[in-house]
């Protein structure tokens, strides 16, 4: 995984999850460990995770714009952060991933799997 795929986010995020959401032991935990399916991230820890992103990486992620697919595992979440971090243009975002999120915390961005409005 290179930095365009979220590599720059991976290590700090992994350390946070292992130390704050797990018991500090990382045996068996990697970027493809299921975060939701194994109950590592839920609605409470999601808020903590996003607060960590804001402090550590300096940009805010709107919780209502995060979909389950974006946090299915660490790789997906890091990749999502790469696409929405400030300074990424729509074109760059397209180049990196299929989902286009032009700004880091657009209030108008609905999750793709939300019911039609």
């Amino acid at each position: 995984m290179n930095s365009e795929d979220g590599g720059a986010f991976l290590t700090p995020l992994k350390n946070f999850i292992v130390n704050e959401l797990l018991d500090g032991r990382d045996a068996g935990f990697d970027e493809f460990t299921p975060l939701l399916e194994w109950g590592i991230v839920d609605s409470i820890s999601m808020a903590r995770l996003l607060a960590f992103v804001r402090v550590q990486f300096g940009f805010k992620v709107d919780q209502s714009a995060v979909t389950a697919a974006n946090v299915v595992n660490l790789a997906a979440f890091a990749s999502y952060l790469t696409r929405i971090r400030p300074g990424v243009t729509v074109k760059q975002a397209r180049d990196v991933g299929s989902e286009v999120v032009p700004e880091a915390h657009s209030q108008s961005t609905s999750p793709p799997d939300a019911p039609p409005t």
Partner: protein
Amino acid sequence: MMLHQLLTRMAACRPDAPVVHDKAGEHSYAELDARANQMGHALLDLKVKPGDRVGILLPKGFDSLAAMQAILRVGAAYVPLDPLSPLSRVRAVVADCSMSAVITERPPADIGVPTLEPTTDFSSMRSVQPIPDPDRKADDLAYILYTSGSTGLPKGVCLSHRNALAFVEWAAAEVGLSPRDRVSSHSAFHFDLSVFDIYATYLAGAQLVIVPESLAFLPGALVDLISNNDVSIWYSVPSALVLMAEQGGLLEQAPRSLRTVIFAGEVFPPNSLFRMHRALPLVRLLNWYGPTETNVCTAFEVSGWLTGPDCAVPIGTAVCGNNVSVVREDGGQARVGERGMLVCEGPTVSLGYWGSELAAGQRFSTGDMVEVLPTGDLRYVGRQDQMVKVRGHRIELGEIEATLLTHPAVTEVAVIAIGSGIEARLVAFVRAGASEPTLLALKRYCAENLPRYMIIDAVRYLREFPRTPNGKVDRARLKDLGNE
């Protein structure tokens, strides 16, 4: 009157009115009615008979609603299966009630019974003609809801058409549902809260707005969904509402469409409820109480009563034609100021558990301890056993313990719920063998064997468990340890 006739009646009266709004868009009563008939004919082709049990392993939406109707129309009982549960648990439920078929998009391997796929087996080529009347009675089984069981296996609560109708008719009138209403469908279909969402909507000719399972942990998205879909009636566990208020902007957005919020399943933290009442003064707040075995058996109108942040909300008095009594430890009836166990009997009380002798008119001891208030209302004060509610989910701690005990590295285990409301956490106290398994390993093990809401949040290792004088694990001491 049978439960499925609520939809057929409304499909005849208001065929073009929208009945459900899901990921695919709006569907009318006539569309749902026709789809249910197509599915019903496919079930008859598969030799599904009156009295059979048929599973539904589908995401919430048009197809799963049609499947419920189809199964009831052929005289069988439906069993909603949790799409997020591990396959081993799905198989256990399928086997437990000897299902004759499962309706699913992705047939799991080794499910052990025939499966039907909505996209292929219920094609539009099938007849939409009504299903011949299977000659069933209102006291016959309509559906089974599986809940956590203390022995380590889920147990199936069996509800009849009459049980559900007695509740739904009361509930729709209580809320004053009308065809203009848009009712949220937040609860998963294998939880009893969904019975109101689905059938009260049909009864009133209203519209159901499906909340996808994937949004359940995203409070901001849930609030947006209310605003964007003009939801007027919201029904969920308090945990979801607290999250929406504290992290999702519910109180700031104050969606204009919202007129009634109903909550059930656990105690609403008084502070949070008071804040909600102040921020949404025009929204009616209703507290409903009742385990899966009784549907809703008591209710309390919160709105005019809430005067401060320290008011613990009562669960109210008996509804739906039920009788509730409060039985003291010595067997006598509790008087004002006294506590006892809440016992319910009446039309909404279930037929019993699958595997036991099913009968209408049973009396159900809830295991919930309540206090009788001077007003005659009841107030929930706790459980008599090891059942807990964590974020609105009913959990028998013994079921998690029984599962963890099968992990090769676990020698002894006790699971305790620490904290309350949205802060509630499941902590496993473990005496391990040669090596201590990581929290990740135990979470994974739970995920492979239990529903997601029963995965432990933390683990503490002990060399010896604290014991009571009679040698039992001292759970009160463990709770203290968990809070340290």
